């Protein structure tokens, strides 16, 4: 007779081995059964993956427009008379200080220069009979202006730190100012006169992403403005920043610019993705997840169906197992594990193919695929959970079979 070894009686290990053998015995059917879950999980992974990738695209577009520029200026406060009172001031090396902060790609100071009424002309003609004409504004900046505001030159060059330090009398004209002053070609070494002093035009700026008034201005180096017009301090800093650098910038820039009084500096930096943007994303998510959920539900129903069919087909086997001493729970455990294996397999295959689809789509459209790895693992796990839920009823049916009736149905 059999020796008493209750611990070696049908355990989890045996149930698992039997389930694997049961699943493996019908590979053709396994593929069909798994298909529903594969499609469901793949749909979830693809939709969420493309949603994340697409959200990243939305981010990039938002960023291209406005999220990559920042500026800083002295804070103001209304005084008792209702006039704006400037609280702090920017140092002359504000641009250099800003550029030392991580995430700042370029920075330039910008100040309006008070020319004390001096007219700006391309020809120094003093004609008292001529109608007074308004002159273009004069702006003073530091050398990295073009990078900081995303500007381009149509002709010539921008001034560099050498011009700035030497206080050279050079100017860059905004394209509108150039038209007004009749300057068309830099190659002829034209000059403009601010008051009576000639300034050589070295470049014409024809576009900018920020500070459109640059295009109608005469731009001089900071150093020149200090020397010739007694500019006392820069009025603002323009910056080109990396995506996501805003928090760092808001935190560090005031200290960098005004270590003794950081509160006196106002930083205008793009915030986190706007609420509008987040609304769009959450709507997209809900729709995509609902689709994936429906697909998954269909996959689960598929598993339940096939497992139930399998239980009916294998009634003889169930009867045999009961005759050999299997308890109801042993039979239930076996079919439940089979169903979990099928679901988990579907989850794994589905998650892998989903990742592959997201990668291929991104490759074809030259997007950067963005996928949360945890989401992929969770999707594979979700397959197993779907299998578990789908297997509950069939396992119960298997466990409820009476051995005599089950045996009669043959094997």
């Amino acid at each position, binding site marked *: 007779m059999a020796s008493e070894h209750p611990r070696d009686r049908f355990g989890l290990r045996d149930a698992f081995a039997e389930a694997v*053998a049961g699943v493996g015995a019908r590979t053709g059917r396994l593929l069909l059964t798994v298909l529903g879950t594969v499609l469901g999980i793949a749909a979830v992974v693809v939709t969420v993956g493309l949603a994340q990738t697409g959200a990243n695209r939305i981010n990039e577009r938002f960023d291209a427009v406005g999220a990559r520029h920042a500026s800083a200026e002295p804070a103001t406060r209304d005084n008792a008379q209702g006039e704006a009172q400037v609280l702090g001031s920017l140092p002359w090396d504000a641009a250099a200080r800003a550029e030392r902060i991580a995430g700042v790609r370029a920075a330039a100071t910008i100040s309006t220069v008070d020319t004390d009424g001096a007219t700006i002309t391309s020809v120094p003609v003093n004609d008292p009979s001529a109608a007074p004409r308004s002159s273009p504004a004069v702006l003073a900046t530091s050398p990295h202006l073009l990078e900081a505001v995303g500007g381009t030159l149509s002709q010539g060059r921008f001034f560099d730190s050498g011009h700035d330090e030497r206080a050279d009398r050079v100017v860059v004209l905004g394209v509108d100012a150039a038209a007004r002053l009749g300057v068309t070609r830099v190659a002829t070494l034209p000059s403009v006169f601010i008051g009576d002093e000639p300034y050589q035009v070295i470049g014409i700026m024809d576009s900018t992403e920020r500070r459109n008034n640059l295009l109608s201005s005469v731009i001089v180096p900071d150093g020149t403005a200090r020397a010739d017009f007694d500019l006392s301090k820069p009025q603002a800093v323009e910056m080109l920043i990396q995506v996501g650098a805003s928090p760092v910038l808001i935190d560090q820039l005031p200290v960098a610019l005004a270590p003794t009084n950081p509160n006196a500096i106002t930083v205008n930096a793009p915030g986190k993705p706007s609420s509008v943007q987040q609304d769009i994303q959450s709507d997209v998510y809900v729709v995509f997840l609902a689709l994936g959920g429906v697909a998954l539900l269909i996959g689960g129903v598929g598993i339940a169906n096939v497992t139930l069919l399998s239980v009916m087909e294998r009634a003889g086997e169930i009867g045999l197992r009961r005759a050999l001493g299997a*308890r109801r729970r042993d039979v239930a455990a076996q079919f439940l594990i089979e169903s979990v294996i099928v679901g988990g397999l579907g989850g794994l295959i589905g998650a892998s193919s989903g990742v592959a689809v997201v990668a291929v789509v991104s490759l074809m459209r030259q997007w950067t695929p963005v996928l949360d790895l945890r989401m992929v693992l969770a999707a594979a796990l979700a397959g197993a959970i779907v299998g578990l839920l789908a297997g509950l009823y069939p396992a119960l049916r298997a466990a409820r079979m009476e051995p005599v009736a089950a*045996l009669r149905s043959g094997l």
Partner: protein
Amino acid sequence: MSTTQASPASDKLPPHEPVPVLSLRGVSQDFPGTPVVRALRRTDLDVASGDYLAIVGPSGSGKSTLLNQLGLLDRPTAGEYRLRGVATATASEKVRTVMRARHIGFVFQSFHLMPHRSVLDNVLLATLYSGVPRAERHTRAMAALERVGLGHRTRFMPTTLSGGERQRVAIARAVVTLPDVLLADEPTGNLDSASSAAIMDLFDELHGDGLTLVVITHNSDVAARAGRRVQIIDGHLAELP
């Protein structure tokens, strides 16, 4: 008919009162319906250790009902069935399942082999539920297959075997757990006469080794091999000479 051969349990009992392996007292089984089918009527039957019993009778006489009772696959409507002295009629499902796994081996007319599993796996299946130590399962299954003359077929699939070979696999599966009694339901019903004779020879050998056998059959040649015969007609059991 009882034998003097000692069963393991009888060591603790007076030698002049050997406990039968199987003992039915007043066992009846009715199947609900209109009219109620009385498949077994107040049946008394003792099977001693080492017996070779044939149960004969026409179709529908209650043979299978009796076998299901003996195999603990069904509960009696009335009466008591003791297996190795343990009352089972009202025992819990768990107790009956454990006793079935430990004490009874089944051989069916249609073999009941799992078609997608190897011969060895089919035999190993019985060891899973009967508490055979994990380390011994393989050795025991191989020994059982050697015993029925199929040591060379262990990796085969049942579908590639002849009917006689399949039934021998089923017998190996039934004896691998070293049961107290082997219950065979029309074991030669699906076999030709040559294969049947081989199976009956195997039963003779197993009986010679001390195994208690209960065989249900309507084949008189098969019944003739048994040392003891009972006939069942309309649910009534009677000893045959």
